[in-house]
């Protein structure tokens, strides 16, 4: 599994190789990227152009249909920042509980973390 992932990443890197020394193994040229972006934009523009053109303002077409419910006004339609990635945060609740306990605004806890790291560093550098 891990080997496959590493193979994949290797191929991904090798796709950059055009033999430049400055970037060691891989190489990337910004201009090629910009050209690629322009081409992609053109393709998107063409596809958009192929869409239906009979579009009338202020008709049934533009009505929002929320399964028959009345449409909320524009203010409420905006998804708040704390609701974005709701599922992600819900899944990792167990992790965020610990992280929030870590980030209480207590100065002596901050210093305690420093003391812990100092102890580990002393143990690893001086203790060995």
């Amino acid at each position: 599994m891990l080997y496959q992932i590493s193979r994949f990443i290797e191929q991904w890197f090798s796709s950059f190789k055009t033999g430049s020394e400055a970037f060691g193994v891989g190489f990337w040229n910004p201009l090629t990227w910009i050209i690629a972006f322009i081409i992609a934009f053109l393709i998107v523009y063409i596809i958009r152009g192929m869409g239906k053109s009979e579009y009338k303002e202020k008709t049934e077409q533009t009505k929002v249909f929320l399964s028959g419910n009345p449409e909320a006004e524009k203010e409420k339609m905006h998804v708040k920042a704390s609701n974005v990635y709701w599922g992600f945060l819900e899944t990792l609740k167990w992790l965020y509980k610990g992280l929030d306990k870590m980030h209480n605004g207590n100065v002596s806890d901050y210093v305690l973390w420093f003391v812990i790291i100092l102890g580990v560093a002393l143990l690893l550098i001086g203790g060995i």
Partner: protein
Amino acid sequence: MNGELDLIAEMLKHSPALIVAIPLLGAFLTPLIGKINDKIRNAFAVFIVALTSFFVFLLANDILSNGSIHTYVFGGGPALTEGGFAVRILFEVDGMNAFMAIIASILALAGVIYSWAFMKENTGLDKYYTLILLMIAGMFGMILTGDMFNFFVFLEIASISACALIAFRTNQGKAVDAGFKYIVISAIGALLILFAIALLYSQYNALNMAVLAREIQLTFLDKIALALLIAGLAMKAGIVPMHMWLPDAYGRAPASVTILLVGATQASLYGALRMTSTLYGKNIIAVLKHVDFDLFGQSVVFDITLNGVLGFIILLLAILTIFIGVLMALKETNFKRMIAFAAIAEIGYMILAIGSAFLAVASIDTVTSSAILSQPGYMALKGGIFHILNDALDIGLLFLVAGAIYYATKETSLNKLGGLARNMKYTTIFFLIGLFAVAGMPPLNGFASKILIYESTYQVNPILSIIAILCSILLLAVFVKVFHSAFLGPKQEKFDNVKEAPKSMLIAMGIIACLIIFIGLFPEYVLNNIVTPAADALVNFGNYIHEVDSNYVISLIGGF
């Protein structure tokens, strides 16, 4: 013509001192000039910082093009008195110092120009500009100095002025609280750094970095001093799990101060790099312990070396830093605190590369007295140093954008923002540039350094680069969320009369955005001309010593 040349040479000779002395002079003059007129005072501050940046670029141009090292002895005389010890304080500027000085000058210029309009309706602006100039002087002093105790002094100058500026909005309780946390943290860190300096002084009776690097023997006291220095400077650099002061401070400070705090943080990171790679450079591959035991018949024999231990510690902290920074940023709803967590993640990328570089130190060339790295390790070092520059620019730009939004709407909570792209077009464009740059989107500078880090760490250990890439994707997600909730969305009538940010703020943002695009388009130019000399300066620690002590012969201690 000849006179002009002499003038240039004189300025070049004295520039290391003037880079620190001019902001100090400006800071001492500002309270007197502030009595005249506000506009004159602001212009004076901008002029002082511009003059400093001019000297920085004069010095950096010479150093990076010729690969020379400048030393400046305060009070004159030779660097070393007979007997081979440095009595006077001296600045020593090599490629790494010049590189960091360039970053600091860019950030300082942007911050001061930005303050012109951003802080207009605040009181006590004389002292505000005084502290800004003092903080800039402290940053440059930390970066340029070649003397341990002088490093501590300038660290304290930067910390104290930064603390007073973080608590600038004294009507907000949390701003004052953040300032208190910052001063407590930095006071403890600085005092333990001073303890380490005293430990070194007690053995070698020297305070000069080059002389200490020549003398150092890696006794037990040196190991304790190294641990103290690393821990203290890592805390000042905001490395997880010692990072909690950073979101508070970054989030509560005015944006024009935050961009300088970024510079101060990276100056601390530079300090950690200098201490480990130059001060202990001679002993970097010293064997701490020779392990030899039997495991199921076959005997296990290996050496625990200093660079292995350091690389292990740094990589451990780097993984923690990237993960926790990104995850907290994903959850955060306060704009500036979120950018602060993203900044922590970016710092994680740097030390990830630096840790891989430490692991990659193979041996020490006793002729040129320089560390010999494997190719991916050297590339990782270059990528990490390159990423320092990119991170400063990207995070700085994002903080300035956040400040512009706060200036326009007096609002930092992303839940209350929305639909600002209609009113603030240029700000939106700058934010998009910063977004793509921070997330490492290909045409911009973030990718240029991140691909180096990915490749090199992949050759050290694939898992590291996988984690780095995943977290980079999460970082993009974070800022897409910001873009969605702050700039997109329907028009909100409470923001109907929101105007575009004033000119000086746009100028400051524009400078950084242009630099980002330039570095993104010509990464190899920057890499070859600015980053590589800095990496070489870190690797060839012998040059740093030779510049002070010309007849220095490396004497490796036992265990090689």
